[in-house]
């Protein structure tokens, strides 16, 4: 198992190395940040001084070399815009995003699996058809539109929930969390709902497809033939059997939700990394972009690793192979 983890970590560093080159070259090759960072009013001298101070006058390979050198010391560089260490900037905002993403992905998964199993178990019932209609909608309606409608309905017209921001936070382990206060929770409901809607649809489909297929298998028939009650069959057999694709997708979705939070965070003014990255993209704040993408890649690898470990925990066959 240790060898497996080490192998994964080596793979991860390769991925991140590739990622950093791609992003670095990409940002340089196509965009020139200086045009955007420097105000249009800047004189030629100011312009040149800025280019020099940001190190943009050096040849590309040299810039990358410096970047990698700093990176080995854990220094991702400083934001062009904020003059803050990028890592600090990103890590400071990561909890807000993680909180939002975890709450929405977990609730979407729980809700989606329950609804999906029902829809797959009784595929011809009205409720199942309603569930599927909702999931087609959730799958199709663009996330930003859902966000707009949520704001319009619950914040503007009904006035039940705040339209944006993070609300009151409480410090736990030195990090600010909003889900621990009532005010914070009320702020998180709409963005989490927005982010969860698509995932919910996805999980419903997945659980339904898995249920439909699994219910037809001999495993279930055999369990039924042994007189085991339906409830137990669903809980002990079905749930475990469909869990593998669901956990795979859960892992993948955790990552993609992290990215999709960009949209939700923009709509709901949620102060997470998504908003940071969209602002940074708009001004081509390269150090932030590079660091964000590298960290995202790292996070992905970590999530995949965790998923693999969970698999081994669930599926004895994989455990056997990994050992």
């Amino acid at each position, binding site marked *: 198992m240790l060898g497996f983890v080490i192998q994964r970590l080596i793979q991860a560093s390769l991925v991140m190395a*590739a990622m950093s080159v791609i992003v670095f070259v990409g940002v340089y090759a196509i965009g020139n940040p200086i045009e955007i960072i420097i105000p249009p009013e800047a004189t030629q001298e100011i312009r040149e001084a800025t280019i020099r101070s940001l190190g943009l006058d050096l040849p590309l390979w040299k810039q990358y070399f410096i970047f990698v050198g700093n990176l080995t010391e854990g220094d991702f560089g400083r934001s062009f815009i904020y003059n803050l260490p990028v890592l600090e900037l990103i890590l400071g905002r990561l909890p807000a995003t993680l909180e939002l993403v975890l709450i929405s992905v977990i609730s979407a998964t729980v809700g989606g699996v329950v609804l999906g199993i029902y829809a797959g178990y009784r595929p011809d019932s009205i409720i199942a058809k309603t569930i599927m209609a909702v999931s087609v909608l959730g799958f*199709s309606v663009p996330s930003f539109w859902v966000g707009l409608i949520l704001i319009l309905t619950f914040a503007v017209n009904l006035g039940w929930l705040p339209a944006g921001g993070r609300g009151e936070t409480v410090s736990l382990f030195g990090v600010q969390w909003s889900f621990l206060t009532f005010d914070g929770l009320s702020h998180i409901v709409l963005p989490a709902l927005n982010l969860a809607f698509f995932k919910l649809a996805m999980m419903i489909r997945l659980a339904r497809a898995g249920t439909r297929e699994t219910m037809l298998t001999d495993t279930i028939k055999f369990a039924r033939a042994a007189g085991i009650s339906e409830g137990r069959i669903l809980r002990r057999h079905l749930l475990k059997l469909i869990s593998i694709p669901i956990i795979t997708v859960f892992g993948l979705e955790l990552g993609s939700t992290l990215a999709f939070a960009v949209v939700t965070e923009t709509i709901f003014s949620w102060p997470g990394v998504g908003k940071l990255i969209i602002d940074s993209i708009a001004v081509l704040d390269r150090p932030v*972009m590079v660091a964000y993408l590298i960290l995202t890649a790292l996070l992905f690898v970590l999530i995949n690793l965790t998923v693999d470990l969970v698999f081994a925990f669930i599926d004895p066959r994989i455990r056997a192979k990994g050992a």
Partner: protein
Amino acid sequence: MSASDTQSPLRLFWREFSENKFAVGSLVVVVLLAVVAFLAPLLVPQDPYNLELLSLLDARRPPGFVGSGGYVHVLGTDPQGRDLLSAIFYGLRISIIIGLAAGAIALVLGTIVGIFAAYAGGWIETVLMRVIDLQLSFPAILLALVLVALLGQGKGQLIAALVAAQYAYFARTAYGAAKAERRKDYVEAALATPLAGYKVAVRHLLPNCMPPLIVVATVQIANAISLEATLSFLGLGLPVTEPSLGMLISNGFPYMMSGRYWISVFPGIALIILIVAINVVGDQIRDQFNPRLRK
């Protein structure tokens, strides 16, 4: 009944498809919207991009208003005095063109990469598929976002970004299908003959990739349209002067709070109908291709 002997697979496919009335309805909607989009210049009362025909005095009028052009603005007008129905038809056109173009290019590119990897085998296969898997694990929206920001605004750039974000899905699918086929004896046998390698790929591998690729294509076209709308909403899509549906929604949203809902809601409804209909059709096709759900 031995009718199946005389019917082409396509007709059989259609027979099964037509059993799902909802899917048939959705297909009709998709076709209808496509026709509307491509015939937009003939159908609309106003060319929404011709500034000469617009009047600011007609701006933001509610549905049913009779403007200076002398006709009824069935869905109202936008902040530039554009007839919203016309703008939606033209927007639909842009959205569909972009979705189709991005989908088609990604399909071709992805299929070539996928089949090539399956056909070539060895380290080429390993490297290509590692890259594809890596890209698949990376969210499309983020990739598209970064690319659009770097490439700049415009249809071509947008399509390029969408293709880059989506081709991997096709590549993975084509690879999977082709790989399964590649292992079969007859392909091995064909490869042993002097028949050129690419001919084997085209003749034997490609046809087997088609069914799953069609499914992925429908989903990805819908995704491309949705992604384009999202990018437009984030201000990274097309220029405001040639609005896609996403841009119309985004332009109209600020007016929602002051009660002028139609500017954003109607394009939104059009977009949702389009995507839902494509997805329902795609779902049905997927179900029909899925052997495990068939008895």
